[in-house]
């Protein structure tokens, strides 16, 4: 039998948690997201802010 896989495109939320979701790294944020897209993010972290701006969030 053939084995089929489907690779969904990565969304910004997946990227966000890969970069900032590790609790040991102690990033400070409050994130709201829906269907893989960031709706709102509160943070003062410069790395997170840079990421959000790259994704076009204002």
């Amino acid at each position, binding site marked *: 039998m053939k084995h089929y896989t489907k690779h969904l495109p990565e969304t910004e939320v997946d990227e966000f*948690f890969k970069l*900032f*979701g590790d*609790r040991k790294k*102690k*990033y*400070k*944020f*409050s*994130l*709201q*997201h*829906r269907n893989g897209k960031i*709706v*709102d993010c*509160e943070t003062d972290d410069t790395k997170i802010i840079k990421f959000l701006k790259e994704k076009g969030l204002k």
Partner: protein
Amino acid sequence: MGDCIQGAFAKAAAAATVSFELLDYEDFSADAASYTFTPSSALTADNYSQFLITITGKTDAVNALPTIIFSSSSSNVYAVGATIEANGDRTSLTVSNTAPINIGNATTFPSANQNFTCLISVTINPLLGYITGYMQTMNGNALFSEQKWFEVTASNIDSVEIDMTSTGKFKADTRFAMYGLKTS
């Protein structure tokens, strides 16, 4: 019936008395920016297996968010949950390493003068060194609800404080109650 295996069926244990203690109750006589409950001695996991908190109230004319602090030493809050709109749409919520924790975020409290109800179930996890719990908040005006599990760094509860952000206040007749389920 014939023979039965001795001990196969445990005898029903005698019902134990559960001590359900009212730790604090406050009905605000006037608008207030904050309220703090300070027990005479810190509440610990040795003495209490669970705490229940209810907050019913209204925000004032300032568009601000109600928050809660579970201990004077708590610094880091982690939470995972969602806001749920009237039509059922869910927006996921993740909070990392911030403090204090919101009773409801800006989605749940989109404007001023909002009536709300918040039910919180809290326990102390001594192995983790965290206060952990589940919080549900309903904004009746906007028909939003918010549900989240949370963890707060603190190993006991030496105070519980609710605060409004910015210059906001809780309206008079907002009520705060905290109960504890004792371990003995």
